[in-house]
């Protein structure tokens, strides 16, 4: 993309008003151009200032108390985090395949925890189960990362489990993409705990079985309309 064309697009890029395709082209240029990076930083600063012109709205009287109460209940150290993640996964898997029985689900649960030949064994289970499993592999950005997508028999429910993804700063999150014929639909955003683990109950507008592939990218907190950041996980149905 030509430098002058990129300069014209930078204000919109800073505001998040570019379509995903344009974003990818501009990012590729900006990575090579220090002048454009400086321009982007200046426009991002200007864009962020728009918050100060939002009409003032008084928050509810009890909101601060709610926040402080929840903060008091949320330890800043991650000691209990991982166990909570796996308990949550067990609950979700049980909802997906109640007819399968607790024993089978416990086997899946133990395999995930042990992480020994995880992907191959879970895939072997697929033929015996009433749900499908998609393995997600780390990209060159994070080759050590991995994930598994468990899809219910009717495709309308799914859970993503990831591990070994690095924690992101407060302004960024991971975003799951559901891919069909090249078109990407958001499946939701998530953050990992200090151990790099996370689960995500997938929010899909259609059956997950209708998609060809799945990917996870790094996006601004809250997600994007299309992938804009580095891809960290990918896999095909």
């Amino acid at each position, binding site marked *: 993309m030509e430098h002058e064309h990129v300069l014209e697009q930078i204000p*919109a890029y800073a505001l998040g008003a570019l379509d995903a395709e344009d974003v990818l082209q501009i990012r590729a240029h900006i990575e090579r151009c220090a002048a454009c990076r400086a321009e982007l930083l200046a426009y991002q600063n*200007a864009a962020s200032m728009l918050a100060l012109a939002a*009409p003032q709205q008084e928050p509810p009287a009890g909101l601060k108390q709610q926040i402080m109460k929840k903060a008091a209940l949320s330890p800043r150290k991650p000691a209990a985090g991982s166990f909570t993640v796996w308990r949550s996964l067990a609950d979700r898997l049980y909802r997906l395949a109640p007819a399968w029985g607790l024993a089978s689900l416990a086997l899946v649960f133990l395999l995930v925890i042990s992480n020994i030949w995880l992907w191959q064994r879970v895939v072997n289970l697929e033929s015996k189960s009433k749900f499908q499993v998609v393995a997600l592999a780390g990209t060159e950005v994070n080759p050590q990362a991995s994930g598994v997508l468990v899809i219910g028999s009717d495709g309308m429910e799914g859970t993503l489990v990831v591990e070994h993804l690095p924690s992101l700063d407060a302004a960024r999150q991971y975003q799951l993409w559901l891919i069909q014929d090249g078109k990407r639909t958001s499946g939701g955003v998530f953050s990992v705990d200090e151990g790099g683990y996370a689960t995500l109950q997938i929010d899909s507008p259609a059956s997950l079985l209708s998609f060809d592939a799945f990917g996870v990218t790094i996006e601004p907190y809250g997600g994007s309309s299309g992938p804009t950041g580095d891809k960290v996980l990918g896999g095909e149905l």
Partner: protein
Amino acid sequence: MDFASRDDETLLHQIARASPDALSELYDRYGRLVYSVAYHATSDAHLAEEITQDTFLRVWQRAESYQSQNGKVATWLASIARHRAIDLYRRSQARGEGHAQALENVPEFELRDHALGLETSLEVEQSRQQVRQALNQLPPEQRQVLALAYFRGLTQEQIAHALALPLGTVKTRLRLGMQKLRQAVEGG
């Protein structure tokens, strides 16, 4: 420790050390700002409340992730809330809820200065005045495009479609609006 006299970055530093008093002070300074951004991005008081909670709890957990290149602490907080609000708004779009809402209830930027009692740092107040003055000088059509992009997270194409305008017109309005805003912010 008296946090009322501390600067914002010191507050974050103390929050990273698990000081609830520092979190309380940060909310006192910017709770209204965060809620305002969330409210106008979603047009929903309940969602705004949820987003504000999420934002401050996120800072409680990840205060150490703030870096000065993220901008002022105030706008960093607002950015977290804005992105979360836009995500929720896009999900409602995907479910077919309220596409018409894209144009309805889109707030106009606050252009006038008026005291609301307790306020933030002097530095943030000065920045607020700069931004308002800059927006005041923009033609209404440029402000409209900026508001749709900022509060609704619409792309230029989506804005052009919503306003039934040529894409080139929207691009020009957005670029000119942002250029003037930048000049005002940098001009001091």
